[in-house]
C-alpha cells in the first residue's frame, strides 16, 4: 500500500500530555475537585425543578450507603463500568479512540445470552466459561475490525467505531425480535437464562457477584500488560509518538489491531457481566449509556487502570443513589447524565490547570538554572 500513514501532530501532542500528568503528588486531588465541582454544577440544575440540591445529594448518598444491599449494588454496577472504562482507556494509551465500546458491549451481550440459552445443559462452570469466552470473542472481533480498517485502510478509528455501534445495535435488536425472542413472543427480549449460567453471588442476598472480582483482575491484567510487557511498551510508544515508534521498528499496524482486539474484548466481557451477573436475560434498549460512561470514567481516571477502577466505583455510587432518588422524587433520571457530563467537563478544565502549572514550574526551573550559570 502506497498510502501515507502519517501521524497527525495531535496524536503526539496528546501523548505528551497524558504522560506529564502522571506521578505528581496531586494526581488524586484533581479528580476529586473536579467531581465535587461537577456535582455542585448539577446541583444548580436541580434548582430549576425547585429541588434543594443539598437535600438531594444528602438523600443520594444516604440511599447509596443505606444498607448492605445498596453498598453491594454499587460494586455490582461498577463491575461492567470498569470494563467499558478500560475499553476506552486501554486504546487511549496508544492514542487510539475506541468510542465504540457500546457496540462491543452489545455484541458481548448477544454472544453471552446466545450461549447461555442454547447450551443450558452444560455444567455451571463450563457454561460460564463458554459464555465468558464467547462474549470476549464477540466484543474483541467487533473491536478488531475497527483496528483492522485503521491498519489496512488508514480509516479514522473514531468514525468507524462510532458507526459500528449502530450496526451492533441493529444486530442486537434483530436477534431480540427474531431468533432469540422469548418463547411467549410478547416483548423484544429473551427468556430468563438457566440458573447454572448465572454468575455466583459474592455477598449473599445482594446482586454483587464474582464478576466484580473478575473486573478487578482484568484491570490488574491491563496494568500488567501496559507497563510490564513488551507489548505494553509498544502500545505506549505508539501512543507517545507514532513516528518515533516506527523508527524504533515497532509495527504500529499490528499494535492498532491488537489494541482494538483487547479493548473490544473488555467491553464484550462487560456484556457477559450484565447478562449473566445482573439481568439474567437480554432486553431491548438495554444499558444504552454504558459505553459513554466508560469514556467518562476513563477520562476521569486519566486512562490508568487504578484510576478507572476508582472512577467506576464513584459512577456506580452515583447510579445507585441517583436511581433511588429518581424513583422516590420528581427528579428525572436525566440528571444522572448531566452529573456525568459536568464531571467530565470539570475534569478537562482540571487538565488545563494541571498543564499550566507544569509549564510554569518547568519554566521557573529553567530560569533558576540560567541564573545559576549552569546553562550553556
Amino acid at each position, binding site marked *: 500500500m502506497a*498510502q501515507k500513514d502519517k501521524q*497527525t*501532530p*495531535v496524536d503526539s*501532542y*496528546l501523548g505528551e*500530555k497524558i504522560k506529564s500528568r502522571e506521578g505528581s503528588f496531586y494526581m488524586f486531588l484533581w479528580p476529586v475537585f473536579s467531581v465535587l465541582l461537577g456535582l455542585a454544577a448539577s446541583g444548580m*440544575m436541580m434548582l*430549576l*425543578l425547585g429541588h434543594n440540591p443539598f437535600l438531594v445529594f444528602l438523600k443520594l448518598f444516604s440511599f447509596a450507603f443505606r444498607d448492605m444491599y445498596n453498598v453491594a449494588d454499587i460494586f455490582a454496577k461498577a463491575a461492567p463500568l470498569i470494563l467499558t472504562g478500560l475499553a476506552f482507556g486501554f486504546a487511549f494509551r496508544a492514542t487510539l*479512540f475506541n*468510542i465504540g465500546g457500546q457496540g462491543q458491549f452489545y455484541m458481548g451481550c448477544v454472544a453471552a445470552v446466545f450461549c447461555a440459552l442454547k447450551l443450558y445443559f452444560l455444567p455451571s462452570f463450563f457454561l460460564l466459561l463458554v459464555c465468558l469466552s464467547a462474549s470476549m470473542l464477540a466484543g474483541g472481533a467487533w473491536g478488531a475490525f475497527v483496528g483492522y*480498517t485503521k491498519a489496512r*485502510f488508514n*480509516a*479514522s478509528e*473514531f*468514525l*468507524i467505531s*462510532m*458507526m*459500528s455501534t*449502530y*450496526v451492533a*445495535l*441493529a*444486530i442486537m*435488536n*434483530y436477534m431480540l*425480535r*427474531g431468533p432469540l425472542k422469548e418463547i411467549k413472543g410478547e416483548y423484544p427480549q429473551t427468556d430468563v437464562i438457566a440458573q447454572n449460567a448465572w454468575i455466583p453471588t459474592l455477598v449473599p442476598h445482594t446482586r454483587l457477584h464474582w464478576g466484580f472480582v473478575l473486573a478487578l483482575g482484568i484491570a490488574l491484567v491491563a496494568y500488567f500488560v501496559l507497563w510490564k510487557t513488551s507489548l505494553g511498551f509498544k502500545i505506549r510508544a505508539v501512543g507517545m509518538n507514532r513516528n518515533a515508534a516506527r523508527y524504533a521498528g515497532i509495527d504500529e499496524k499490528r499494535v492498532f489491531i491488537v489494541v482494538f482486539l483487547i479493548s473490544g474484548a473488555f467491553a464484550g466481557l462487560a456484556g457477559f457481566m450484565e447478562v449473566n451477573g445482573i439481568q439474567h436475560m437480554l432486553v431491548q434498549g438495554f444499558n444504552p*449509556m454504558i459505553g*459513554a*460512561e466508560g*469514556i*467518562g470514567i476513563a*477520562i476521569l481516571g486519566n486512562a490508568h487502570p487504578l484510576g478507572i477502577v476508582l472512577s467506576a466505583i464513584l459512577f456506580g455510587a452515583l447510579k445507585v443513589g441517583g436511581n433511588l432518588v429518581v424513583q422516590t422524587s420528581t427528579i*428525572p433520571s*436525566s*440528571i*444522572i*447524565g*448531566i*452529573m*456525568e*457530563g*459536568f464531571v*467530565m*467537563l470539570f475534569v*478537562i*478544565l482540571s*487538565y*488545563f490547570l494541571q498543564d499550566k502549572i507544569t509549564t510554569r514550574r518547568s519554566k521557573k526551573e529553567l530560569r533558576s538554572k540560567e541564573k545559576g550559570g549552569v546553562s550553556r
Partner: protein
Amino acid sequence: MIWTGLLARAIQMSTPLMIGSLAEVYAERTGMMIIAIEGIFLLGAWGGFVGAYLSGSMFLGLLLAMAVGVMAGSVYGFFTIKLKQHQIVTGTAINIFAAGLALYLYRVFFGVPLLPLTVEPLAPLSIPVLCDIPLIGQALFNQNILTYIAFLIMPAGYWVLFKTPLGLTLRSTGENPEAVDSAGINVEKVRFLTVLFASAMDGLAGAFYSIGFLGLYTNDIIGGRGWIAFAICFLGNWNPMGALLGALVFGLADAASIVIQTSGFRLIPNEFLIAIPYILTIVATIARKQFNVPAVLGVPYVKERK
C-alpha cells in the same frame, strides 16, 4: 409513483446532512473538528421544538435552535481553542452532557405530558410551474424552506471557501496557522468565529428533524445523524460540493430505509434497513483512498511552543 415519493423523501432527508456537513467542512478547514456535532444537533432539535411550541412561530423556533447551537459551540470553542484541550475528549463530554440536558430541560419546560407534544412541521412551499415537472418536480420544488436554503448555501459555501479572501484565510488557518498569524490575523479568533458559525448551522440542521420533519421532539430524534454529517465532511474531501454529493447519497439511504419500512416489504429485517446509512459510512470510509486532510486538523494553536 413510489419513485417520486422516494426521491422527495431523499431530498428532504439530505437537507440537515447538507447543512451539518457544510458547517463541518468550514470548521475543519480551519483545523477544528466539531466532535460535539451530535450533541449540537440534539440541542438544536430541542431548541427548535421548544421555540416553535412556546411562541407558535417557526421562525423563532429556528432562531432559538441556532442560539442554542451557538451556546454549545462557545463552550466547545472555549475548551478547545482558549484552553487548548483535546477536541475528541471535549466533544465527547459535550455530547454526553447534551443528551442529559436536552431531556432534563424538556422536563423543566413541559413536565411529563400524557401525549407527546406536537407542532405543525414546516409547511412545504411549492414553487409554481417548476413543481409540475414530471418525476423530479415534486421532489425538488415542493419542499420546506430549509431545503431550499440548503441547496443555496452549498454552492455559496463553495464559492466563499475557494474564491474569496475570507475563504483563503479560513483554509490557511487549517494548513499553516503560523503564516496566518504572521500576516497579522488572529488564528484563535478565526477558529472561534468559525466554530460559532458552524454550531449555529448545526443547531439549524438539528431543528430540521424536530420542526422541519416530525413536528415533535424525542431524545433519540438524532440517533447518530450528526455523526453521519461528520462523516460526510470526510468523505466529501473537505469540499462543499463533495459534501453536497455525500449528503444526497446518505439522504437517499435514509429515505430508502424509511420508504421500505413503511411499504410493508419484508425481505430484509427492519433493523438492517435502519443500519444502512451507518454501514454505508463504514464502507465509504474504507473505500476512500486519498484524503485531503487539513494539515493541523485537531491541533490547538500555541504561539511559540517550546
